[in-house]
């Protein structure tokens, strides 16, 4: 896959939830393309459809209508088991709450996805240490999550998301639970990872300042895209 080739293509994506007798249209015919190696931010007010879009692209939920193509694969044709395998092998997730296993150390949390794909210990341990170094936590390898700050926990979650070399990392409000200084550092880390590793990142955030650090900014309102522009970045 070359830089600038289409990694994700969303066509006429719709999602309707039934809330009692009321139908809520969370996504209203969304069309977008994400190129390989882009850092995409999706912004918008709460309830605008950011998380729903990430759930559809992350294969966590099924659309009511429309298509999500990832790396040329029509995800509608995947079974639940294949979707699960696709997520494990090709996608990375970072959530608002870091959701680390409290009884596992930082490095043990990071190696979990690798263990699930049956990687060899030598490979995953070396890789996990490298990832911890790349997120600046080389001195926190054996620390438990409760011994780490919010920002450090989120960095462990980032390292975990990168463990299986995903083609796309999805992150939903990754800075919602950390202070502004740390939020900037986390987004800067995404920028660095995106540049250095050429990993495509799709980040949902309601903070426009943080969103503006991305190379591709999409703005949502009432389940529709109201703006979609790319920024030229000097490499």
């Amino acid at each position, binding site marked *: 896959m070359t830089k600038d080739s289409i990694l994700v293509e969303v066509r006429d994506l719709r999602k309707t939830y039934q809330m009692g007798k009321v139908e809520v249209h969370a996504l209203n015919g969304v069309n977008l393309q994400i190129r390989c190696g882009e850092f995409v931010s999706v912004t918008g007010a709460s309830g605008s459809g950011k998380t729903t879009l990430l759930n559809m692209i992350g294969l966590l939920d099924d659309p009511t209508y429309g298509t999500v193509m990832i790396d040329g694969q029509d995800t509608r044709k995947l079974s639940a088991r294949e979707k699960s395998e696709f997520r494990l092998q090709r996608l*990375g997730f970072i959530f608002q709450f870091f*959701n680390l296993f409290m009884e596992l150390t930082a490095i043990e949390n990071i190696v*979990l996805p690798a263990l*699930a794909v049956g*990687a060899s210990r030598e490979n995953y341990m070396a890789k996990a240490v490298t990832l911890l170094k790349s997120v600046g936590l080389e001195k926190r390898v054996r620390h438990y999550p409760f011994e780490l700050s919010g920002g450090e926990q989120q960095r462990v979650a980032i390292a975990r998301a990168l463990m299986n070399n995903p083609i796309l990392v999805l992150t939903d409000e990754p800075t919602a639970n950390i202070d502004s200084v740390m939020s900037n550092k986390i987004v800067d880390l995404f920028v660095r990872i995106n540049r250095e590793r050429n990993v495509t990142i799709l980040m949902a955030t309601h903070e426009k300042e943080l969103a503006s650090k991305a190379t591709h900014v999409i703005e949502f309102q009432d389940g529709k895209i109201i703006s979609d522009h790319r920024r030229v970045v000097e490499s």
Partner: protein
Amino acid sequence: MGRFWSSVKTAFFISSRDVAKNVRVLAIVLLALGFLFTNLLFARFMVLGFRDILEYDVIKVSGALSLVVQQTQEKEEDENISKLSSTQYKLEPEEADYLQNAPLLEKKISEFPGVASVTSILTSSAMLKHGTKEEPAMILGFPLDDKVTVLSKSVVKGRYFEPGYDIERESGIILGRYLAEKLAKKRGKPSLEVGDMVRVIFRNSRLKRYTVRGIIDARDYEANYDAILPRDELQAVLKTKLDEVSEIRIRLDDKNRVPELKSAIAEITKLGGAVETWEDKDDFGLPDLVRGFNLVGQIIFGVGLLSSAVVIAVVIYVNAIRKRRQIGIIRAIGIKNWLILLVFSVQAFLLSSLSIGVGTGFYYLLDYYLHQHPIVMPFGDMTTSFQLHAYLVTVKLFLATAVCAGLYPAWIVTREPIAKITSEIG
């Protein structure tokens, strides 16, 4: 295959860490489950202990097997009726009452593998008198070297007949405890004592005086109503032949071999008499009693098993609910539901395995105490009876119940849509 084992290792890894995480909570859970397991073992082994003591109650005085005179019941009844209708009815058909060639039969039986010891006895109904009080009783004529029964070890007053005992010199008799008490009642005493005189009228109408040499309490209703004389003495009184006996009592190495040895001994002694098991001898509905207790034990066991399942299900469910978010995240990452279920199953397995260890420890202490201080029952000292097979069955059932109980709440959590969990977070 490599991926599967890697997943299993991952499940063990996460589960063991989770189990060991909070030592205080772990200790409480292990105590609760451990006590439940102890309860399961106790219910099972106490019933087995009760069964053992009921069985032992019969076996200890009658042996596990007995060779007795073959009875042809229906024919005999017809004959008796015909005899009753005539004036020629003879109360005791003497020859038919005894096994012939007793020493030879005894030798044959004792050579049989699995037979621990053999003793031949003579029995006779008799009337015992002490002053004006009289009681019918069975007189048992035992050889002085009896190793089948526990009667010689059940003396509570006086002494039993030691080998070489000379009856001519002392004319001693051993009385069962209840018989001694009954004979004493009208004399204003609670029981006859050693040295008291009793008169015995045998079934051949012969009367003899004996001095009470000892009183036995065999913790057996029947045996405590009997009187014991040396076999030679009874032989002399009844004027039976030297090779005639009423019964050959047989002790086995293992009472579980009774059915097998019954047929084998019946085969080698088929012309000499009929073989009865201790169960055939039982007149008190022992199998019904054992069945009843088994049922009670099974109910207690079943309830205990369900209680364990509930405790484990609650523990796992609380854990699964507490980890709902994490489960949602790892499912989002792509970790399969079966691996998550495996993690919780392994956790249930680890908890129940540790509980089995704790519960077995508690049970061992209880077992030790009960063997030191058995429950005194009218028919013997009751205690638990540990059996490895029953223990292993209990362990397997406990583990299976625990894993199933652990699986269900985890399964509920893995059924929830991932997007629902993750959207609740965000």
